[in-house]
């Protein structure tokens, strides 16, 4: 087991910069999600750590040992592929045994280790099956067992749950997390599914256009996004743009929005504020007195989407559509066309430098 340090890693394919000066410290035993849209470089980064491709610049260290020029078969990593990449000509047990077998381990050791790995992923009785006789979730487990049976230093997962349906995916998320905790292996997980990243990982790295946009624990990134991209890519956010007042911004129409979190910016600079839709309270024009210090905006409901446990209101205000999510508490629902007041606290408002 070992941590992974990536320092100043760059990789170009022709004129395209797939990775641009990326540095991340993956702590020993941690569960790390690399999140980003397609083409953001997250898979390129994973493949660099695995050793499928070598960097143009920068350093990769596994357990303190520089590996950026070490070929993949010598890196002692375990990898789970998006399409599982199980060997079709081998049984489940032979698939799992492959890594031990190419190392020339004795047969008895292999058999015992394979059984242990299959038991760990709860497939102990399916060793003699062929991959094509398994369901998607079972193949996923075989791929995982095959990757961890060799006791790799790092476990790399490339969108491993992407091919599963929603219910199975949630099961596998829990399962994967359990196995990871049980063996305590450093795990790096590539996904474009923000929910998956939020629920599973200790830390998240968000990538965009080959650069690391922000990294940290899920709560920190969600509550304190440092860019408009991070705010809108991980979860939903209302973005207001204007000029910094030092502790908030002033919109073009003169309305001030107070921000209690985020960057410290000099007054006058271009800046944005981000507010999560579930942090905004929505009420009819009459009633509810102003809470002190609250940000207040008036608008009109243009659309309501009912989703069972909550409703999303789209509120028109000065040419901007704001999103508000309200839990279904049984309170009266607001009609489309209704004039409303939106209130939220400055503590829920994050100040972000423009650009």
């Amino acid at each position, binding site marked *: 087991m070992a941590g992974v340090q990536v320092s100043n890693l760059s990789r170009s394919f022709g004129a395209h910069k797939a990775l641009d000066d990326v540095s991340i410290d993956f702590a020993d035993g941690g569960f790390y999600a690399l999140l980003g849209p397609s083409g953001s470089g997250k898979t390129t980064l994973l493949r660099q750590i695995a*050793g*499928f491709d070598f960097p143009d610049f920068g350093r990769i260290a596994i357990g303190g040992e520089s590996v950026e020029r070490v070929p993949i078969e010598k890196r002692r990593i375990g990898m789970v592929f998006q399409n599982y990449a199980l*060997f079709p000509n081998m049984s489940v047990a032979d698939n799992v045994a492959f890594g031990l077998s190419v190392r020339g381990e004795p047969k008895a050791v292999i058999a015992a280790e394979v059984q242990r790995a299959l038991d760990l992923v709860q497939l102990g009785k399916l060793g003699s099956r062929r991959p094509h006789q398994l369901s998607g979730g079972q193949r996923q487990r075989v791929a995982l067992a095959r990757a961890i049976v060799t006791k790799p230093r790092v476990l790399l997962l490339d969108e491993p749950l992407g091919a599963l349906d929603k219910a199975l995916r949630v099961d596998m998320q829990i399962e994967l997390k359990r196995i990871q905790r049980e063996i305590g292996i450093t795990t790096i997980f590539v996904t474009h599914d923000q929910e998956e990243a939020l629920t599973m990982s200790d830390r998240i790295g968000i990538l965009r256009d080959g650069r690391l946009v922000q990294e940290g624990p899920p709560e920190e990134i969600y509550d304190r996004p440092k860019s408009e991209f991070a705010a809108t890519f991980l979860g939903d956010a209302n973005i207001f743009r204007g000029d910094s007042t030092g502790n908030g911004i002033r919109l073009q129409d003169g309305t001030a929005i107070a921000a209690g979190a985020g960057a410290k910016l000099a007054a006058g600079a271009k800046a944005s504020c981000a507010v999560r839709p579930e942090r905004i309270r929505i009420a009819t024009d009459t009633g509810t007195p102003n809470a002190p210090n609250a940000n207040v905006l008036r608008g009109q409901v243009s659309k309501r989407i009912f989703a069972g446990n909550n409703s999303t209101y789209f509120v028109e205000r000065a040419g901007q559509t704001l999103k508000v999510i309200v839990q279904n508490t049984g309170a009266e629902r607001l009609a489309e066309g209704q004039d409303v007041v939106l209130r939220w606290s400055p503590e829920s408002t994050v100040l972000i430098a423009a650009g």
Partner: protein
Amino acid sequence: MRTTRILEWLGRLYIWLLLAFLYLPIIIMALMSFNVSPFYQLPFEWTTEWYASLWQNDQLISATWNSVEIAVITTIICVLLGSAASLALYRYEFRGRKFLQALLFPPIAIPWLITGTAMLIFFFGVGIGRGLFAILLGHVALALPYVIVVVSARLQTFAPELEEAARSLGANQWQVTDRVTLPWIMPGVIAGGLFAFAVSFDQFVVSYFLSTPGQTTLPVEIYAAIRKGFTPEINAVSTIIIVVSMALMLLTARFFKFGGAK
């Protein structure tokens, strides 16, 4: 209802006509190899005389063995070289790869008559001359593109992640090839080998140019024998070859389904 039945009936008739077209000449030839009359005269009278005299015909037998040997060696060489070349073309990006791949197809399209003439002239020029070795070289050159094309087609269905997965588990290049890639392309290799065997064993034109009176192959020998005067021994040897090669084909088709999934 009635039209469907008529169509069904027509369809069956068509299949039977097709099979008759393919097999009737062969069946007649096989029957005549057991007929007393050397001139295809009826009524049919059973004999194995022609097989007995075939046994005495050293020229025909030695040509048959030449053909078998050359076809087997050609198959082995082409399968080894062709599979290796296909893997190289699949795995590696190198200068001129596309160009090399494109160059594989013209030899299949060039008439054998022209290839044969070119080889005859070339082999004389470089001192190889004619004979069994020249025939073997010629056959390898003719059959190699078939193997590469068939194996490459099979490789197109191979998922490159399988090799990556094997390497990530610590397998070196040989282990990857031996345990993952080769098992996958094996049906293609078998099919390619069959093609190579057929190209060599059926080869007349190129063999004709490159053979000498003592060193010749079966098709060339049959041609020479027919020119001297047809004998039913040729029916007999052809029947034996048909039975053996059909058995081979059926076995392979049974076990490998020609490059399809298992």
